[in-house]
């Protein structure tokens, strides 16, 4: 009973201080929106409008028709027409273009013979994504209108993209981004929560009162769970309105998953808070968590494609498990029961981190 009243006292104090801290309050709302806009619009693996130059030495009806069709694919954005393949190479080296298309003088004959390549694509292969997209251009059919269509027969392998048939990047990015945003803000808020009080001298007063370590920890964490939930709602709304990202699964499951994930991050933040001496140190430690949470969690790169060691590291991060949960629930209509092992990990992580933080936080100064 007394314990509850002390937890409530800490809780009320945190909320009160948070309301007056305009910067932090702004971050609660501002950070998710800014991140969503940045990541949603900037990260696009669905590449279009690559700058392209054409060297059309054939200049026949067929070659001109080919160039026109190339422009219509939206993959290539034709910005230069030059005379020689050498000029294409120069432009490529200068970084002016990503793709150079060379149509030799005997283009028409090559199209008919099919013994030698009719089109030469010069591609800036240093970016694998661009190379991959340019490779698709090879499948464009070239033939005289009058020629009989060559029946290539049924394809041996048929590709059916599930869950994201339009192959839009935001559909994949947004569920992962929720995890990144929550990692960033939740750890940040709690990591500085105790260090700030230590720097301001408040802690010396607090630890001389009957408040226990556990009461202090719980009182500091609970308000931020609510804030995390607000951020989740905000992110989902922006995802829906701007990027048309669906939530196929149960919204309740999503919030349950987020609740355990938020608790895991807050506990981690508190643990950092007990280890750091200054707010600056807490920030530095946070970066150590945040970067792997972006790079190794499967948010940026497919988890299965990562080296074994990176995967092991990734498995330790709460965000890895949360991204599996959000992608599952939002895109594949999975229930939380289908992904229960991820939830179990997050709960376990929370318990371990919270216990460690409480044990590390002694009510002493030495």
């Amino acid at each position, binding site marked *: 009973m*007394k314990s509850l009243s002390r937890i409530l006292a800490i809780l009320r104090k945190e909320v009160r201080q948070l309301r007056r801290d305009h910067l932090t309050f702004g971050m609660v709302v501002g950070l998710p929106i800014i991140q969503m806009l940045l990541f949603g619009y900037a990260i696009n693996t669905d590449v279009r409008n690559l700058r392209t130059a054409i060297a059309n030495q054939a200049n026949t009806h067929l070659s001109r028709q080919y160039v026109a069709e190339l422009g219509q694919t939206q993959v290539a954005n034709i910005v230069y027409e030059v005379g020689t393949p050498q000029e294409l190479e120069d432009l490529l080296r200068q970084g002016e273009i990503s793709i150079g298309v060379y149509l030799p003088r005997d283009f028409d004959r090559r199209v008919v013979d099919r013994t030698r390549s009719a089109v030469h694509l010069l591609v800036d292969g240093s970016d694998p994504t661009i190379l991959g997209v340019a490779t698709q251009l090879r499948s464009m059919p070239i033939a005289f209108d009058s020629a009989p269509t060559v029946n290539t027969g049924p394809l041996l392998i048929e590709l059916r993209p599930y869950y994201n048939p339009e192959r839009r990047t935001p559909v994949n990015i947004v569920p992962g981004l929720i995890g990144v945003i929550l990692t960033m803000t939740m750890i940040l808020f709690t990591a500085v929560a105790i260090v700030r009080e230590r720097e301001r001298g408040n802690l010396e007063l607090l630890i*001389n009162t009957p408040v226990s370590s556990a009461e202090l920890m719980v009182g500091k964490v609970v308000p931020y769970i609510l804030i995390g939930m607000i951020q989740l709602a905000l992110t989902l709304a922006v995802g829906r309105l701007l990027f048309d990202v669906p939530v196929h699964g149960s919204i309740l499951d999503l919030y349950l998953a987020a609740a355990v994930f938020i608790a895991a991050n807050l506990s981690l933040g508190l643990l950092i808070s007990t280890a750091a001496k200054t707010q600056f140190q807490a920030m530095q430690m946070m970066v150590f968590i945040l970067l792997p949470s972006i790079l190794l969690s499967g948010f940026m790169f497919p988890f299965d494609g990562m080296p074994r060691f990176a995967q092991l590291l990734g498995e330790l991060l709460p965000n890895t498990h949360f991204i599996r949960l959000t992608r599952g629930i939002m895109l594949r209509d999975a229930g939380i029961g289908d992904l229960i092992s991820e939830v179990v990990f997050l709960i376990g992580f929370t318990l371990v981190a919270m216990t460690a933080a409480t044990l590390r936080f002694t009510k002493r100064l030495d």
Partner: protein
Amino acid sequence: MNGEFAIEAHGLTKRFGDLEAVSHLYLNVPRGQIYGFLGPNGSGKSTTIRMLCGLLTPTEGSATVLDTEIPADARLLKPKIGYMTQKFSLFGDMTVFENLQFIAEIYSFPTRQRKARIEEVLDKYDLVNQRRQLAATMSGGQRQRLALACSVLHHPPLLLLDEPTSAVDPQSRRDFWSSLFRLAEGGTTILVSTHYMDEAERCHRLAILDHGVKVADGTPADLQQSTGMHIIEVRADNPYRAQAVIGAIPRIASVTQLGVRLRVLMPDTIVDPVAIVNNELRKAGLDATAIASTATLEDVFVAVTLKPARHAA
């Protein structure tokens, strides 16, 4: 319960690495009195106070505070003490009322008593007009009153105050001390550290700390009478030269300049010290006269911190 002393320290020692901040401190603080810790910065005042309220674990020794064993049962002591930190430690981004409310909640005041008690301390510590002011925007004196109000809110029988007046003006200091006397009259034991002599003089008893060692303790009057020194005051037209002349006299303990006056300390085993000093001054051809004087606390402080035996230890 109720032993004679609120605080009994048995050889409290605290080392930080090689530094011995507090060294084998024995202390008896009677109940209901204002007990002062006098000493310069770094003399171990704060460290001792922090050990006594369980914030620091003693390297050696123990203490009994309000019949609670420290450091073993420090947790049980928390509700019974009020502690005022050297640095303002309340929440600057909360108002006076909110700070008091928070403290009341932390000490689990029943809701009905809470309001009445807060109003009572607001009134008593002259904070009624500041109730809605953010603590960070208050003056030094107001902050200090708020800190005191918060530390006494739960009626603790023991108050530990760590240099409470180091950041406030003289008028606020006087008001603050009259508040302390009122509390002591009400039965509260107060342990207060200071480096101001005039504050030390107001304490019922005090201990003088130097480099972590208690070099003297007793009532201010006792301390002033048992310095073991002759105190001589010299008025000189050229105090700087007079200081050099007197300093050259064998067995002089110390010479301190105070404006045109010099305070001279000589061991009380010397016979007729005033004549010796006057004689030397005359020989040097200086226009100065020495007269016997009585010890102030400052003299006591100088006398006890000069003992060469301690430095050898």
